[in-house]
């Protein structure tokens, strides 16, 4: 169990039976007798003995998850949902934009992209956090910087003493010439308000709606397309997503 920030921790689970996933899919974690929540594993999908989940403390179940100690047992079911279509990114620039704990599924994506790195043009990562203390995966970031064809730029909404990096919302570090928009895909994950404004910026930069991949979030209960809670227009985020292109959801009344 790794403490990332004041309210985000990464948990390493060892499944009793083999349980594999592909980046972008999610699983449901149960604290028996209390409840169940959906999380996207943030680990390398090729590592099958353990699964890592980066979880923010936000409610009753996550508060109890944050109190877990080594050796405790939780329930796990999945994987559900459609993964990132990595093969569709071959030969392109991949523009990865994340905010806060939204970096969790993007971490799994970055592992996945790194496995395919010879087939990709380049990977440009842009990551925003509220403050320097809220940056997730502080220990991983230097290692990712060293990866082939990978460049990382981060920013914080508000600085703290000692911070020498960029200050501003993540939209401020999305520059027009970061990638070749005619031959790129953008993958975005973060709080709904951040995704809304990043999406706008990406469209202004010239990305086609079909090339913007968004990890949508909705209240889930069953996770298997039966309880209707996660409906996003005609889609279910659990079954048809959680990854959607902007092209698929641009006409839906209330995507955010």
């Amino acid at each position: 169990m790794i403490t990332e920030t004041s309210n985000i921790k990464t948990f390493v689970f060892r499944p009793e039976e083999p349980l594999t996933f592909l980046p972008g899919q999610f699983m449901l974690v149960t604290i028996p007798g209390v409840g169940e929540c959906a999380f996207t594993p943030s680990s390398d999908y090729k590592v099958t003995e353990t699964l890592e989940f980066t979880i923010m403390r936000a409610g009753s179940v996550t508060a109890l998850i944050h109190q877990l100690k080594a050796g405790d047992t939780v329930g796990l079911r999945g994987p559900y949902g459609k993964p990132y279509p990595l093969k569709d990114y071959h030969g392109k620039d991949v523009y990865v934009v994340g905010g806060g704990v939204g970096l969790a599924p993007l971490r799994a994506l970055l592992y996945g992209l790194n496995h395919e790195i010879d087939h990709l043009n380049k990977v440009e990562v842009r990551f925003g956090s509220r403050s320097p203390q809220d940056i997730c995966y502080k220990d991983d970031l230097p290692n990712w910087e060293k990866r082939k064809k990978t460049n990382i730029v981060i920013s914080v909404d508000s600085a703290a003493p000692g911070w020498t990096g960029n200050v501003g919302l993540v939209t401020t570090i999305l520059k027009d010439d970061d990638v070749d928009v005619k031959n790129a895909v953008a993958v975005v994950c973060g709080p709904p308000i951040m995704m809304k404004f990043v999406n706008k910026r990406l469209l202004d930069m010239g990305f086609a709606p079909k090339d913007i991949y968004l990890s949508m979030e909705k209240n889930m209960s069953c996770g298997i397309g039966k309880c209707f809670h996660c409906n996003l227009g005609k889609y279910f985020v659990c079954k048809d997503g959680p990854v959607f292109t902007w092209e698929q959801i641009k006409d839906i009344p209330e995507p955010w």
Partner: protein
Amino acid sequence: MQAYFISQAELTALISSLLKDSIVIAPVSFQGKNILQPINEGTAGNVNLSGYRTIEPFKSFLFKITEKVAEYFNVDQPASGKKLVFLGVRGCDLEALEVYDKVLGEGEFADPSYLANRQDILLIGADCTDCGPTCFCTMVGGRPFPYQLFDLNLSPVAGGYVAEARTEKGEGLIALYNKASDEQVKEKENIRQQVIAKLEANNQEYKCHCTINWDEAHKLNLENTKAWQTITKNCVECSGCNFICPTCTCFLLLDQKANEQNDRFKVWDACLKSGYAKVAGGANSRPKLYERLQNRYHCKFDYSFDRLGRYTCVGCGRCIDGCAGNIDMRKVYAELVRQAPLTAKLE
């Protein structure tokens, strides 16, 4: 289908024989309307198949209001219990059953408890001999008599019922009765036509007064925010419409702890409730009530068409009867269409 004739007395005897190994759910008369009750020997004679649909639907016998679905970490298959007989299912009830079969009974994750009760069920339908003031099945492609999914159908005529079987199970129940006469079959047809005519007349004022039909109408103007705010003025979020609707299947999975036992329950849920779409952290994609009411209509007429190839509204009108705010969905649609600028189609 060969038509037989069953007298009222013969029907009561048939119910008694079914009671030997099944639970029989049937309509009985109550203050001028029909309500559903489990029937026993003493009440078999009270079953009333004339009139129109019951106040409440048959749904809660197949899709339970609350149900334990797991005890950690065991998942036992539910026991099927006694066989079910639904007696007096109307045309709209059977349309709703088709929706339930598609949503709960099909696919990779069909509901095992739904299937356990559904597979051995005996469905005995009944023609409507009248329609209620809120019925509008014909406006959504339905008819006031069973035409699918039933084992046996009973059409009330003078002295009894014209009985027609659709399956071997139904045939087995009536093979020993007298065949129906031509006059009786004709009487059945006449009653059907009369009810259809009354439905058309009742709903004439709601029919769109322009060339746009329902398919076009709902796509045109479901986004009219001002119209929805007006429509929602009377809504008090009681969610009666969600709970009484025979095609609604929203549920919530709830975990509970009792001493050492951890249980998971599946309970009915309602999309009109304010917290339905709320996520951890407090964000809510439908914070306003009119957005949730709008979403309900989208779900019944728009999204369901994309997901299942059909409307999931069967025109039974129970939501209109049950609404604490007197919201009538026929009026809602007529109003949306009247307000729809025809030029919107040209965009």
